[in-house]
């Protein structure tokens, strides 16, 4: 390592030699950087899982455009929309189809008394409203009263339940005073607000939610005619539909808005954002402490080097060399521990938590920046190395 660094730096790697000279301090410093990396990677992982879980239902929509209530922030909130907007949309040039989407939440009580929260999609079973082949293959089944399809990724459900359903054994459970018969499964996955999804027909949905009416869906899924200009059709829809009760967006725009709202205005998103900031601050403080102590302990040696004729740049090089070594050597164990923790969190929660290359690179670059910043602050102490004081 010394030879490699010496070759890379073109000089004796004093920073590295100083670090390995005091192995206890080096271990503490690396543990600190690793801890900060784990903190940031985990918070970014949770933030990423939040975004991924927000995206899950949007990815299921077999639509190009989404009409929602104008006060909608997320799929789950906002007022119901007059179904009349669907018929108005169908008159607009470029629109091929429009279908209502009803959205609600139910609590699925488990045999042990615990509750699983399910997001419920009520769809027109005569239309492939969703992109999920497993759902589309069973549309005729859910057109029957009180028949449902369930997300096989719902968390903490007795082992074998979904396998039995998939194998053809219907599963029945009571909810809102009705008995639902689950005849098939599909896979979407849970998020932070629900453990998974349930898909029923619009008629079953209205029976499950008696306060809802067929004339007021939550969203309207719009598909464009082949060759239709999306932007032009969007403009036409916006011009046609009253802006005071409806908003027309591409599915991607609706997701972006949902994501922005949940990550910046909902407590859960803010908490993860603060977690990232706190992780960075912890890292800066730990690395600064290590580097400033190191500089303070070597002031006489640095003053001697100054007397010999080394310039300030040389000393800055030593401090930054230490900072970068701490960043890289601290990040590696932090990254490995995070991978392990991601696996544990996914196994326990089923959240869509995945380490991406971009996130790893981002945190590595951030760790390098964090350590460089700490190094830059620590170099202020170098000014105290006065060679005249050596005599």
């Amino acid at each position, binding site marked *: 390592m010394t030879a490699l660094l010496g070759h890379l730096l*073109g*000089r*004796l790697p*004093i920073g590295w*030699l*100083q670090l*390995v*000279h005091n192995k206890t301090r080096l271990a503490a410093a690396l543990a600190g950087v690793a801890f900060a990396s784990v903190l940031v990677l985990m918070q970014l992982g949770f933030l990423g899982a939040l975004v991924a879980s927000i995206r899950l239902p949007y990815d299921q929509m077999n639509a190009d455009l989404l009409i929602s209530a104008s006060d909608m922030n997320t799929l789950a909130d906002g007022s119901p929309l007059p179904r009349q907007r669907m018929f108005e949309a169908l008159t607009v040039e470029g629109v091929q189809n429009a279908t209502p989407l009803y959205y609600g939440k139910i609590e699925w009580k488990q045999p042990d008394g615990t509750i699983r929260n399910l997001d419920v999609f009520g769809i027109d079973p005569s239309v492939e409203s969703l992109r999920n082949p497993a759902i589309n293959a069973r549309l005729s089944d859910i057109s029957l009263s009180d028949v449902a399809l369930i997300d096989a990724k719902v968390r903490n459900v007795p082992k074998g339940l979904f396998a039995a359903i998939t194998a053809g054994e219907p599963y029945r459970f009571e909810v809102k005073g009705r008995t639902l018969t689950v005849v098939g499964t599909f896979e979407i996955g849970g998020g932070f607000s629900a453990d998974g999804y349930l898909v029923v027909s619009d008629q079953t949905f209205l029976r499950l939610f008696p306060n809802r009416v067929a004339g007021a869906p939550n969203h309207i899924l719009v598909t464009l005619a082949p060759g239709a200009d999306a932007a032009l059709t969007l403009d036409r829809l916006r011009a046609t539909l009253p802006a005071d009760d409806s908003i027309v967006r591409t599915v991607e725009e609706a997701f972006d808005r949902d994501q922005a709202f949940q990550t910046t205005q909902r407590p859960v998103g803010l908490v993860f954002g603060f977690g990232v900031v706190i992780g960075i601050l912890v890292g800066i403080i730990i690395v600064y402490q290590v580097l400033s102590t190191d500089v303070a302990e*070597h002031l*006489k*040696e640095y*003053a*001697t*080097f100054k*007397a*010999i*004729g*080394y*310039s300030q740049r040389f000393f800055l090089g030593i401090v930054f060399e230490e900072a970068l070594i701490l960043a890289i050597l601290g990040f590696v164990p932090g990254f490995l521990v995070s991978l392990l923790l991601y696996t544990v969190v996914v196994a326990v929660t089923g959240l869509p938590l995945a380490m991406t290359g971009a996130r790893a690179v981002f945190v590595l670059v951030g760790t390098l920046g964090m350590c460089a910043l700490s190094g830059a602050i620590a170099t202020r102490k170098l000014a105290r190395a006065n*060679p*005249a004081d*050596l*005599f």
Partner: protein
Amino acid sequence: MDLTARRERYTDGDLNRPDAPVVVRGLNHWFGEGEARKQALFDVNLALERGKLTVLLGASGSGKTTLLTLMGCLRRVQDGSLTLLGTELAGADEQVLVRCRRRLGFIFQAHNLHESLTAMENVRMGLEVHGKAAMAGWERASAHLLEMLGLGERLHYLPGNLSGGQKQRVAVARALVGNPDIVFADEPTAALDKNSALNTVTLLKRLGTERGTTTLMVTHDTKIMSLADRIITLEDGRIVEDSGTT
């Protein structure tokens, strides 16, 4: 010969020598500000002769360290003229001072070795400052010097595993490995036993003869003074005695 005559004889004459590595004219220096301002050097005039070993004597507070640090480009000249190896240091900027320092060797009373570097690596630092070109054969040059100073068996020892005298000899090697034009030494033999001290000073004298290295040394070691080519005594910031070059 009275003191004034001796001072005139050995300063004015040397001041005009074109090959003098250090020429000091009318040098004054102060410390502190305002009412606390105190003058440490008063109108110092002297020139060092190339290749000679000069010993600087004086009680604590006499100004010898101030003079040494001014000559060593470690302080800025406030008043008067100080020419080091042909460069006027009065008004010189930091870059000039750094460049000049690279032509000097420093031996401090405290060895100030880098604790995480071996003896060889510490000596190497005295060469690395001169750039990559100077690094060719650094191992041979460093080992040779350390062997001359009796440390052939300790080349790869860390300072923590060396005695005080051994550390000081490593510091001497570090100061000399870059072939400095002038060596400034502050009590360099204080931590050395009699043989090591004589060995070190003999080496400095030999460098003076062979390479023309000039040495200015602060010491109270009487054994060393007998080897000096010249002894200058400072008192209250003034040169009060100068033996002249022998």
